[in-house]
């Protein structure tokens, strides 16, 4: 039995009712989220990275449907059976407890993630009081991740006081490396710098002790030095708190720095998945290779920066057969445009969907 398994996503399919018709931008996605590990999801814009991870907390627009055959299984502390959240309503108590409580989220735009009319502290305190309960003893206040349940039992489900929550907020801001946290907690988002805002956003997400942190392109909007600092911070916090991270990016270079496992998405499907080192050193799928070739590196400075050639097909016209065949340099005519490739395990834990590896 896999004790570290937190979330198991099986055959996830998400569709949208749009004015142009019914589209399915996420189709047949499988992945696992494990305690203390980082899953990196890479892919070009529109490949379904955000949709497939927001589905975990049902944080999708009203016109989205998660197909009932999909399974999103949450393995909760102490529970004998995993909880499949697919049939639950997005407004249900269970989902709200998962949002923030078990799964924290940070986004690409740290400025836009905060409401400009409330202080940073206000938004942390709000989250803390929503999910954490008054500490019965000073010991419980320092409880670690995953123990909220015991904590709440001990405290008899009493809501944490504002003052207590404020202490949590200040402590959390300090932990993410914001100096003068006692002052910052009362400041508005526009009074912080870009990098500090993303640190603050991480503080908001982690203040409720989630066991999973979804980071949707958290460094894309930041400049390179700040980006490196934020990645470093996330690594440190993971080592300290032991949460799982789902890290979304379209930058293979960033993925290489932070992920333990990488899933490569193309048009709503995972075309290749494997341990980071293995996948980078021995990429199989032509699309993964294309993405890797797009990383700028010193020994390739003379050659033009290559990216994957060709245009991404519109979600309304998903190609038949292999999704990638319209852009694939190694297309096998007569096969790739007709049959969808099965998932093959090329070496243990390294999966690829490509007719080249049957």
């Amino acid at each position, binding site marked *: 039995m896999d004790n570290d398994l937190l979330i198991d996503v099986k055959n996830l399919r998400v569709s949208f009712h749009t004015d142009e018709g019914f589209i399915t931008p996420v189709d047949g996605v499988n992945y696992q989220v494990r305690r203390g590990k980082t899953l990196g999801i890479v892919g070009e814009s529109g490949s379904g990275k955000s949709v497939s991870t927001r589905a975990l907390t049902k*944080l999708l627009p009203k016109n989205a449907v998660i197909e009932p055959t999909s399974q999103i299984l949450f393995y909760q502390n102490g529970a004998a059976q995993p909880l499949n959240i697919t049939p639950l309503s997005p407004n249900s108590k269970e989902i*709200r407890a998962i*949002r923030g409580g078990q799964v*924290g989220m940070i986004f690409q735009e740290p400025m*836009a993630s*905060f*409401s400009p*009319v409330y202080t940073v502290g206000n938004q942390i305190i709000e989250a803390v009081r929503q999910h954490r309960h008054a500490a019965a003893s000073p010991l419980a206040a320092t409880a670690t991740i995953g123990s909220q349940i015991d904590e709440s039992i001990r405290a008899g489900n009493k809501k944490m006081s504002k003052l207590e929550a404020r202490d949590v907020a200040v402590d959390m801001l300090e932990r993410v490396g914001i100096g003068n946290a006692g002052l910052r907690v009362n400041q*508005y988002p526009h009074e912080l710098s870009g990098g500090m805002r993303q640190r603050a956003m991480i503080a908001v997400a982690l203040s409720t002790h989630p066991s999973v942190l979804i980071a949707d392109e958290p460094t894309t909007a930041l400049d390179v030095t700040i980006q490196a600092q934020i990645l470093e911070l996330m690594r440190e916090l993971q080592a300290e708190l032991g949460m799982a991270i789902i890290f979304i990016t379209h930058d293979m270079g960033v993925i290489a720095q932070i992920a333990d496992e990488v899933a490569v998405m193309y048009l709503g499907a995972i075309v290749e998945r494997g341990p980071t080192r293995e996948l980078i050193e021995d990429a199989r799928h032509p699309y993964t290779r294309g993405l890797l070739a797009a990383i700028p590196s010193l020994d390739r400075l003379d050659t033009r920066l290559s990216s994957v050639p060709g245009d991404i097909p519109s979600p309304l016209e998903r190609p038949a057969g292999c999704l990638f065949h319209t852009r694939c340099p190694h297309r096998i005519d007569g096969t790739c445009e007709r049959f969808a490739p099965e998932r093959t395990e090329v070496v243990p834990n390294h999966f690829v969907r490509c007719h080249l590896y049957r």
Partner: protein
Amino acid sequence: MLRFLVHRFIGLAVTMFFVSIMVFVIMELPPGDYADRYAFRKFSGTGVNVTEGDIENIRIQFGLDKPAWQRYFQWVGGIVTRFDFGQSFAFETSVNNVIGKRLWMTLAILYSTLVLTYLLAIPIAIYAAIHRRSAVDYSLTVLSYLGLALPNFLLALILLYISVTLFGTSIGGLFSPEYEKAGWSVGKALDLLQHLIVPAIVLAWSATALQLQTVRATMLDELNKLSVTAARARGIPEWKLLLKYPARLAVNPVVSTIGFDVNRIFSELPIVALVLGLPELGELLIQSYLDLDMYVAGAVLLMLTFFIVVMNFISDIALAALDPRISLEG
């Protein structure tokens, strides 16, 4: 925040100072002066021959021989220290007596119109934006187009007809005759509301239609903000986060246009008041112009602009309270 308040308050005082000068200039514009008119009024038809000397005496009696700036300060001083707006020439009594009830009438209509507008527009528009493309949302669009198309006075006539024929309410004035002199009671308050509702609906009509559209549009904008998604991702209950984040900002355009609304109500009020037979300030202003009764005209002008300026002041402060970015920059 305190600095911001002081700042805006000084702004208010300065504005009122310039307004009072402008009003005073307007009061001085008609040919002749108060003494001429007083003499004409008092002695015309009596056969008494009024000499220049008599008029000069009247002038001295009223202090009109003094230079304009002295008279300005006397006028303003009277208003500020004693709340005394001078003498009405046409009514031969103090301006305060002439204006009296009309001031309360105007204020009652102004505030009931504003309250009605905001009470209707804000919640309905927010609801419609949250339930986009629902029946409420669609009927709202139709209604607000109607609201913008139908002229006020026409609506006033229709409502007048309906309320007299269907409900038998007497329209005109603030109270029915039986309550006019009575002390305050629940019945009297209800009677007052009954009299206010028709003018308030008429005046609120187009503003509500307009505000519905702006609040709905702002709310839709705010609902799509990442900060709302982020709050949702923290597990905050839906109704709570909708009120705390997008709804708070969706009322901004309403708050920032309070001054315009007051201005518009004052300009539309005389026509509506004429149709509904309400004694209010706008009508008095027009009458005082016709009579060249300049102290009355000045008092009305001053009061109306005062309310516009004060409501603008309130709108500024409310806006700063709603959006802390404002006071920090000011």
